């Protein structure tokens, strides 16, 4: 459902951040993306959601070449992807509830059709008491969990999570991993960028994609 072919990316005039990246993500698969800080994990995810265009190479997503998508198709494709940003990117003027409901709201769904789901998901990530709080008053971990909830709410075909447990305690991290695994089992392809070795050890069945020096190494 997602494939990179000889993808290279260069920011401005600096040397290539990503070089000859070639890999495939199968539907219903689960993988960790790891590598040292600054290796290009976030960059890779930005390529997948088309927030960034590759300098060279071909990215195919849901069977389509991203280069050839028009604007509507880009939006449609994005609606199939859930993403947890490393820096959360919650909207401070909305409540937590509204933030999490955002992907469904912008798709034009009726609020009554997702209200229960949103509150339940927030409860599951431990934010049941903070539903009406604005993100600005949340702790780091709480923001992170809200960001996770927002990525899950639209039941994406592909989930990208960028360092989703960097700000939560190990118990909560396990709980979140369990959520991702269940999501994966229910049919979603999952890519989790993380530095957390303990986390990765908790789910051995996952593929590991390791970025280093701009190249990708895959451990099945």
């Amino acid at each position, binding site marked *: 459902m997602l494939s990179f072919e000889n993808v290279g990316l260069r920011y401005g005039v600096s040397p290539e951040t990503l070089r000859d990246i070639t890999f495939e993500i199968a539907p219903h698969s689960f993988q960790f993306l790891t590598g040292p800080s600054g290796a290009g994990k976030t960059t890779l995810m930005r390529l997948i959601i088309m927030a960034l265009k590759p300098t060279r190479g071909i990215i195919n997503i849901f069977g389509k070449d991203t280069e050839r998508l028009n604007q509507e198709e880009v939006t449609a494709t994005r609606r199939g992807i859930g993403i947890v940003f490393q820096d959360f990117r919650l*909207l401070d003027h909305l409540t937590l509830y509204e933030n999490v409901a955002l992907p469904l709201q*912008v798709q034009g769904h009726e609020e009554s059709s997702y*209200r229960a789901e949103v509150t339940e998901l927030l409860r599951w990530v431990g934010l049941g008491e903070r539903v009406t709080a604005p993100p600005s008053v949340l702790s780091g971990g709480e923001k992170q969990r809200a960001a996770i909830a927002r990525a899950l709410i639209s039941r994406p075909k592909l989930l990208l999570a960028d360092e989703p447990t960097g700000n939560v305690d190990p118990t909560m991290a396990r709980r979140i991993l369990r959520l991702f695994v269940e999501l994966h089992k229910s049919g979603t392809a999952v890519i989790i960028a993380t530095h957390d070795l303990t986390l990765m050890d908790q789910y051995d069945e996952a593929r590991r994609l390791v970025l280093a020096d701009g190249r990708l190494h895959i451990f099945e």
Partner: protein
Amino acid sequence: MLDFMRDLLAPNRPRLMIKPDSAYSIKTPLVPANSVAGRSLVMVIAIMTFLAALTAGAATLISDASIDWRGEAASEASIQLRPTKGRDIEADLESAANIAAKTRGVASVKIYSKADSEGLLSPWLGQGLDLQELPVPRMIVLKLDTKARPDLSKLGVEIVSAVPGASLDDHHIFISRLGDMARAATMISLFIFILVVIALGIAVASATRAAVATNREIVEVLHLVGATDRFIAREFRRRFFSLGLSGAVLGGGGAILFFAGIKLLSNSWRATAGGDQTEALFGDFTLSPTGYGVVLLLIACVAGLTGYLSQQIVFRHLQQLNE
């Protein structure tokens, strides 16, 4: 509800504990309603609209006043009769007045008596002068129907042929001078109005740009969670249209109140000499329906402009994100 989650949640947290659905709902507009930048935009728009409405009002006041001046002058003509030896001037006055009264488009005819005519001259000849012996010219004043002005040149010929020594003055020199003056005044006020409208446009554009810039993060997030460009632009246009409308109504309404206030004040000024002068210049400061129309149009345009600009700015930003 994600199906697997029901199981995960089930054991220790019974379904009943969940708050009723209606407890939470989406109320906040996606583009923040009450940011500092938004309020500042409203203030800037209000002020610029106020000033533009003021100049527009002043322009209509001046042009209305000049129409008054010209209208007054144009609705009158006069016949002058110089006394000639051997003719009965009173009879000549009568016959000239008769000819004039019969002409279509002449609303009324008034013969100035000798005393009236002397009164008109006295400022120029000095008060104490004994005019009895002077052959003072006599006047007939014609009120004209401004909607169906008579053919004055024809009337002039008729009168001169019937009454030698008579002449018809249709004030056209005076009117054309007044016309030049009024045109100049109207042009100047129109010019200033255009200047202010240009300034308004620039100010609104740059304040809108600044207010949109503070929401750039929101554009990006909406974009990445799957909102279409059209959806985002529409949210912004709607929000900024309402900001523009508040500002424009505030400013335009302020201007209307201002004119109302000035009218009240001018009523109390009227007693003073200065007040008289200004009133002579500007009429009684009553904004005409045209004036109100211009102010309302201005309000609509400013609100529309703000909405349109915000949409364009957001679209351009989205295009940059897309490439």
